[in-house]
């Protein structure tokens, strides 16, 4: 196991994300923050709080469960648990800041864009991720990245956040030893 970010590094990475987001989101649109379940939600809450403090904007917060939109749903051994999605605002014509912990193949983001489209038609979607670990399989890129790392394809990158885990950190583990 190797540690990629400790608590301090994670906090600094979120600070950078918030700084850059203020620059890439169109100023003339209303913004909202949407986290992808599970770890993207805690991250989205922090991004929203800091971004609201920095810009003074009202920022609705939602979260998205992408299970039903996965492209490998029918190949899985059993139906994975579906958790609740909560988007209680209309994203149509807004700038949606989509937040996830790790960007890897890009398939989660493809699914999230499909799911988001079923709630309305955002004017702009910006993607903010804490860690970009490479190995993209789809033509998808993040607008804002907290930390870029080189990984082997079979490694597992895990983000822990104190809201749901024991503390803040990002680690990479060899395959098959994940949580």
């Amino acid at each position, binding site marked *: 196991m190797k540690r990629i970010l400790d608590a301090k590094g994670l906090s600094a990475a979120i600070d950078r994300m918030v700084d850059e987001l203020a620059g890439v989101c169109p100023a003339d649109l209303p913004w909202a923050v949407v986290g992808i*379940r*599970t770890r993207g*939600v*805690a991250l989205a*809450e922090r991004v929203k709080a800091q971004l609201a403090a920095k810009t003074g904007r009202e920022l609705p917060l939602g*979260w998205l*469960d992408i*299970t*039903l*939109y996965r492209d490998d*749903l*029918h190949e*899985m*051994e*059993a*139906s*994975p*648990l*579906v*958790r*609740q*999605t*909560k988007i209680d605002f*209309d994203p149509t014509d807004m700038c949606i800041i989509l937040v996830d912990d790790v960007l890897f193949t890009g398939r989660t983001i493809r699914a999230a864009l*499909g*799911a988001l*489209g*079923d*709630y*309305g038609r955002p004017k702009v979607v910006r993607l903010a991720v804490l860690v970009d670990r490479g190995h993209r399989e789809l033509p998808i890129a993040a607008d804002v990245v907290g930390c870029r790392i080189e990984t082997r394809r079979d490694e597992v990158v895990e983000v822990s956040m104190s*809201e*749901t885990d024991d503390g803040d950190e990002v680690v990479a583990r060899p395959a098959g030893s994940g949580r």
Partner: protein
Amino acid sequence: MPRGKSQFVWTRRHLLGLEELSAEEIVHVLDTAAGFKEISTRSIKKAPALRGKVVVLLFFEPSTRTSMSFNLAAQRLSADLLEFHTEASSVKKGETLIDTGRNIEAMGVDIFVIRHAAAGAPQMLARHTNTCVINAGDGAHEHPTQGLLDIFTIREAKGRIEGLKVAIVGDISHSRVARSNIWGLTKLGAEVTLVGPPTQLPGGLAGERCRLSHDLDSVLPEMDVVNLLRIQHERQGANSFPSIREYSRLFGMNAERLSRCKDDVLIMHPGPINRGVEITSDVADGPHSAILQQVTNGVAIRMAVMYLVAGVKPEKGN
């Protein structure tokens, strides 16, 4: 902030009844349905989970609401849908059913939803075909999705099932709704009291898990939930109670009886209601009534059940 993760893996290809489900399996369906409920509130009420799957509704008994609910649930998950409504022939039911099932299966389908007047028909279909089978009501045996949606509605209103006192009132012995409720509720730790005329209270396994009473007024004040069953004229040979008026006087829910219930009592009915018989209009349409929530939740429960059974590979499931 939502949290928590379930390591539980669903392994059943069929939902035939709640008697065979564990408490953990029942809770898993309820949790899954909670995730699906929100889909019905979106601007685009559809998710692609069953895209390319075919759901067949085999209704050998008349039904509007249950078949509409399954129909809508299948469509909200993007499944294709075939509907087959017919009255079963009274002779050779078994042979007809298996032949029908195999013929439709040969066209390439994924889920059978079956309602049949004969108890055990869904089990027979599951044994003789390779398709997922969901029981939408078989005779006086079980109606598992109704039981699940009732329990879901109670959990949503009360936040728990364990320790709740639930009365099921009416013609228990003819009621598949009662049977599914009894199995599900008692497995999750509710205390169930069955209330009805002596001629309509059941014996048997399901009945043994409950308290029995012939006197609604004596049990009402302690109940958290009162679930009123519909009088099923079609499932009774000879009337097992003297008159509708007498039934209503002894077992009907009305404003006067409601005033002697707990302040937060939940009044339920699987529908369609006979207004003025099992329940008066003021109670059915009043603030304690969960009747329309039950209907809303039914779609989410049926989505969850179809999603779960369709996800199990034939060679892995049981």
